[in-house]
């Protein structure tokens, strides 16, 4: 498969299997729903809109985001579904400036690997919860605009942690000891 960009403003579902060594990029403002049994081995790039994982993951064999490729975030959102709440954190790129954006979409998701992009940031959207079980060293801000972000491990960054419930209930839970840097301001706006 050559590199395949999806650049749409609507919701588009790809149910057929995607295979090969190329990459998949979601651009535009729409939602790309991938529901096939995909085996492509290249990277997946979240560059705009939402990319919804809508089929089950079979680790090392197939899954909506292919097999083993790096997941890079430059403006798009990884959106979960009732069909898939896989922990993809071990595949997240640690390159500088990653804009990790996660929509739990009503699901409960936990990440066992740290998010470690220098200058990177994390945005948690959608209802449901995202649990972060280990230490994270991304150095940018953290934003929760819906649902719950549960820090069981730690956030080492000194940038602000903001909870914004303007459009939906949003909460930050600090379950780990010294879960947030002692230099990071916490804000919550209703």
């Amino acid at each position, binding site marked *: 498969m050559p590199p395949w960009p999806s650049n749409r403003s609507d919701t588009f579902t790809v149910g057929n299997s995607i295979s090969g060594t190329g990459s998949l990029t979601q651009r535009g403002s729409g939602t790309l729903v991938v529901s096939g049994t995909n085996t492509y081995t290249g990277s997946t790039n979240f560059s705009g809109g939402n990319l919804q994982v809508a089929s089950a993951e079979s680790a090392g064999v197939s899954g909506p985001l292919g097999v083993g490729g790096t997941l890079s975030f430059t403006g798009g959102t990884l959106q979960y579904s009732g069909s898939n709440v896989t922990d993809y954190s071990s595949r997240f790129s640690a390159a500088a400036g990653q804009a990790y954006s996660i929509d739990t979409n009503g699901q409960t998701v936990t990440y066992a690997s740290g998010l470690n992009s220098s200058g990177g940031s994390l945005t948690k959207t959608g209802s449901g919860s995202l649990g972060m079980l280990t230490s994270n060293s991304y150095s940018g801000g953290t934003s929760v605009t819906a649902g719950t972000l549960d820090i069981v491990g730690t956030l080492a960054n000194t940038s602000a942690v903001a909870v914004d419930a303007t459009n939906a209930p949003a909460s930050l839970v600090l379950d780990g*000891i*010294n879960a947030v840097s002692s230099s990071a301001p*916490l*804000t919550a706006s*209703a």
Partner: protein
Amino acid sequence: MNAAIVVNANQNLASITSAGTTSFNGGTSTVGSFGGTGALVVASGVTVSATNALNHGSINSAGIVNVNGGASNVVGTIDGTGVLNVNAGSLSSTHYRHGTMAIASGATATIADSMNPGNTSATGYLNSLSLMPTAPSTS
């Protein structure tokens, strides 16, 4: 909508500025400064210390709240069965309906009515009030 911060373990935080509800449900935590119009809720067995400032919409505490600094802290209302220690600085509130208050030497706690006579919303009761005497001079 409601923005919430929930603390379930020991924390050492720079600041919390909240228009929502901040709940301390476990551990012993220190916060540099509190700000915002939100509610601060402290569970029984939990200790929260404000190092530099404690300005908030309300406090409802069954635990221990320590005010350790801030020249002009203002909290809208203070309720609960817990312990409120004003160890330094000053604290003003519209009402205190609290279990125990201890005011250290050199610290000040003001019920709003005393600053604004005729403020009929200002009420207060304490089950225990402890005022620390001025330390004797050593010179």
